[in-house]
């Protein structure tokens, strides 16, 4: 009964919500309990979940999803500048604008599949990045990035209050400031909602059809499905997720720069999804966790810290180990990430989730064998005692 409960939607959501909301508690021992990093976990979690709806379900690999992240950020900052520092309109507008961009880009790119689709999305992303850097400077403020300023109109805010604020105002949800832990909890709640929608999509007939498109698109056509609207819907949904993630980046830190749209940002979400396990529900989140952890924690380890960690080793050996390891942390954290990524792709093509599945199968088999052996032993014992009589 327990197992069934955890596999039902309600059970999954309960388990997931508890896990996300208690992150500050269980991430404390590994040194990842500070609001900035937790916010990043949640925000990129939303980004990766959305990306996985497209890549994991339909198999269409987009190399330009950072566009929607960037669009979301710019829209949110503009909403802060023009309307209000309240985060709700910012998020709403970001999702709408990102969705519109996704319709346009998706409509054009989905005319091709496979590598051509990937290249087209990449081309769009680079185009948007360069435009944000140069010609669109009035909207994006070019290199400097879009920032708040004290001269911003903020129509709605100013209409309702006459109070003169010293310095720059901060983003808020009806007066609650969106930085630190409140910011994290706000992102976490949105992550939970985003996860719920993704769960519903995965388990719905719509998700089933997307999986069938991934499995055999030609057959899908001869089975009577017009596949392109299905693909476009998946593309737009994942674009909206990315827009939401982008707006949350602006909510927690109200500035937007063009580098958010760069191809490295698009590549990062691909890495996250593959590392965690594409096409699985929680895999992308694990990928986000691993990559963001490396980026923030591994990169901050320096040789002093390493000497502390390895101080239990004999002196000569300690120096040697620290010299070797220091190449893999600090500045070199990407080296470790690259090695890890290679290992996962070579030995666990299904990502970390496949590793978990394999381990659980091994344990299950081991337990089954042990209980079988036990039965055999008790059976033999009872037989002996019978013989003894």
């Amino acid at each position, binding site marked *: 009964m327990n197992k069934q409960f955890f596999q039902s939607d309600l059970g999954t959501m309960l388990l997931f919500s508890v896990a996300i909301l208690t992150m500050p508690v269980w991430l404390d021992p590994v040194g990842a309990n500070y609001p900035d990093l937790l916010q990043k976990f949640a925000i990129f979690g939303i980004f990766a979940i959305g990306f996985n709806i497209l890549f994991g379900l339909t198999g269409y690999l987009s190399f330009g999803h950072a566009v929607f992240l960037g669009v979301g950020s710019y829209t949110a900052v503009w909403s802060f500048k023009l309307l209000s520092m309240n985060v709700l309109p910012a998020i709403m507008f970001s999702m709408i604008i990102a969705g519109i961009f996704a319709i346009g880009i998706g409509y054009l790119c989905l005319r091709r599949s496979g590598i051509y689709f990937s290249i087209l999305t990449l081309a769009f992303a680079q185009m948007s990045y360069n435009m944000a850097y140069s010609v669109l400077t009035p909207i994006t403020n070019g290199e400097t990035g879009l920032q708040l300023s004290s001269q911003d109109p903020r129509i709605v805010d100013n209409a309702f209050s006459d109070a003169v604020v010293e310095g720059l105002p901060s983003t808020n949800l009806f007066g609650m400031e969106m930085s630190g832990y409140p910011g994290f909890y706000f992102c976490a709640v949105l992550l939970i909602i985003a996860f719920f929608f993704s769960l519903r999509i995965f388990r719905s*007939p719509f998700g089933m059809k997307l999986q069938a498109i991934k499995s055999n698109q030609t057959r899908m056509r001869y089975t009577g499905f017009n596949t392109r609207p299905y693909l476009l819907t998946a593309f737009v949904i994942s674009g909206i997720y990315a827009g939401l993630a982008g707006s949350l980046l602006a909510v927690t830190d109200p500035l937007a720069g063009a580098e958010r749209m760069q191809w490295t940002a698009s590549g990062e979400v691909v890495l996250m999804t593959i590392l965690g396990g594409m096409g699985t529900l929680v895999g992308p989140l694990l990928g986000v966790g691993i990559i963001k952890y490396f980026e923030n924690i591994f990169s901050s380890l320096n040789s002093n810290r390493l000497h502390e960690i390895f101080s239990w080793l004999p002196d000569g050996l300690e120096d040697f180990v620290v010299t070797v390891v220091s190449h893999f942390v600090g500045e070199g954290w990407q080296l470790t990430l690259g090695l890890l990524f290679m290992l996962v792709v070579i030995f666990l093509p299904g990502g970390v989730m496949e590793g978990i599945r394999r381990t659980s199968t091994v344990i299950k088999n081991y337990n089954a064998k042990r209980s079988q052996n036990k039965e055999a032993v008790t059976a033999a014992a009872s037989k002996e005692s019978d013989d003894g009589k």
Partner: protein
Amino acid sequence: MENNSTENNTVLNISNVNVTFGGLHALSEINLQIEEGKTHAIIGPNGAGKSTLLNVCIGKLVPDTGTVTLDGEIMTGKLPHEINHAGMVRVFQTPEIFPEMSILRNMMIPAFAKRDGMFKFNAFTSMADEKEIEAEAIHVLQDFGLVDQMHHHAGSMSRGDKRRLELGMGLIQHPRILLLDEPTAGMARHDTNRTIELLQSIKERGTTKVIIEHDMHVVFSLADRISVLAQGRIIAAGTPDEIRANPKVQEAYLGGAEI
């Protein structure tokens, strides 16, 4: 809408179809009428153009000239999914299933096609119908003896089972006309007999069928009419008895041997 072709009970009308690949005449002036409720077999040696003809029917290939009409409606130039919705369903020679998905889901996908293959936003209604479609899929799987393994991956099935699944996926769409491309090729004898039984039971339901087959045992136990294709031309057509007796057919295809 009444028109001539339905009055004559012609379901599928292939008229004056020509297909060339470069200089090769794959199909020359093919004219073929398939009548309602009948099983029409197309036989012929390898490379005679049988599969090309089916490809023309389902829109995989656009003919150089000529038209294919289904119930008086022109199919030529339509997209594959539109042709499927008109009621023309093909069962592929090499099983074209969804290997990563379970057998049950493989069966459910084509059942969904009729309702929302054209795509509409029905996130809420589709949830409610899912159970109904699942029940229908299970029912068909029962008919095909695949219900015990329905949660297994379709890719792990034996070849014979895959072909039966393929056939079921065609039938669950309740087609107006079913195109079968060598349904028994590469099957063991008892599998072949089982497939013949299945096809005969479909016949009783009155589904119109076009069947391409090499196995003469299958052809003569199922077909109402036979057309013989050789080098892209129809060289003979008639009832099984007429075809058996036709000397031209014996020379071209049956190698002069008595059947």
